[in-house]
């Protein structure tokens, strides 16, 4: 039995941004990683006490149990409008939300686009896993052609349902948008000499992206950060298989990168 004492210093520890309540997310789901990253970032930036999270309808609906700040529940797709209402009456608050691909890009597409058009100083984290997770695996606006979901059991047909939409292409020409960034929350599978290994560079990059997004809000700008994630349960894959899919398939349709950076927060003004 090892004695844990003052001899040891904590290199990486818990964050006050998380309430400590165990999450309901499926094993392996990157929503949990996002919880740690946002919690840490808000704590480090000293924003927790001023933060108001708007809980969207999707797998993150129970976020009021996890993030240690104020919360407002929004109807499906309406988070950007609710955030605008909060921010315009109380600009000193930091408002953010985690939306799924359906919440932001289907039912909430108008709210998403108009908040960007107005340049509302809010922060949207979009968790893109190409499927509707909470409701059991239906087609999403970001579902790939040919992808099997419960409402496209024979594969998504673009002739009937259209092509997957790329919100970066829709929002990047908008004048008052300040920061559009796509990152990947998925640990990258690599072949090591002893077998399978995961690299976490994407996750560390994601933390920096989250910090940038909040900085942009502090500067008064609109940011939308899209993170590619997995959904092994609804993709009907093992956790390991699901980690390959974004790197093999999803990034062809949704390449990571900086799509807009009005303040040059990542170095170059875009």
């Amino acid at each position, binding site marked *: 039995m090892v004695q844990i004492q003052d001899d040891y210093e904590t290199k*990486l520890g818990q964050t006050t941004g998380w309430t400590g309540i165990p999450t309901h997310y499926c094993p392996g789901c990157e929503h949990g990683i996002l919880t740690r990253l946002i919690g840490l970032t808000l704590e480090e930036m000293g924003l927790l006490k001023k933060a108001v999270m708007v809980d969207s309808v999707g797998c993150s609906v129970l976020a009021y149990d996890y993030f240690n700040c104020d919360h407002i529940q929004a109807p499906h797709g309406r988070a950007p409008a609710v955030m605008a209402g909060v921010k315009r009456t109380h600009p000193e608050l930091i408002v953010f939300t985690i939306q799924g691909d359906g919440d932001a890009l289907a039912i909430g597409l108008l709210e998403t686009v108009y908040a960007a058009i107005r340049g509302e100083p809010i922060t949207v984290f979009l968790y893109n896993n190409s499927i509707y997770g909470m409701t059991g695996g239906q087609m999403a606006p970001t579902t790939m052609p040919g992808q099997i979901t419960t409402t496209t059991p024979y594969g998504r047909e673009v002739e009937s349902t259209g092509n997957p939409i790329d919100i970066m292409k829709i929002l990047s020409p908008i004048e008052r948008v300040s920061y559009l960034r796509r990152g990947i929350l998925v640990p990258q599978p690599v072949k090591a000499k002893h*077998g399978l290994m995961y690299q976490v560079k994407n996750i560390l990059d994601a933390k920096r992206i989250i910090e940038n997004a909040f900085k942009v809000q502090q500067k008064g700008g609109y940011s939308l950060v899209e993170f590619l994630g997995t959904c092994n349960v609804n993709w009907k894959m093992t956790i*390991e298989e699901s980690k390959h899919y974004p790197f093999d398939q999803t990034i062809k349709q949704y390449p990571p990168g900086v799509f807009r950076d009005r303040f040059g927060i990542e170095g170059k003004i875009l």
Partner: protein
Amino acid sequence: MTVAQHRSKDTVSPQETQDGRPKALVLVVPELCKGCELCVYACPSGNLVLSHSLNKKGYHPAIFSYEGTQGPCTACGICYWVCPDLAIWEVRRLKK
């Protein structure tokens, strides 16, 4: 890597420790772990493996041993970043 292949956590190589203490520690909270095995594969030195026993939720939680299959723990923190359940509670290292 299976549970059986992993070395017992009681053996600690004397050259890797300071006065017999491990240089680095990873605290895993078994009740938070969902047995996704991301940390098991992500760890570069093989210090984590799923336990034989079950936690209250019915998962095999990850357990840490300082001496891994590829070497001792270096407190790199990769397990911490990859854990989706915040079950990797802390990564500690011996103060100099």
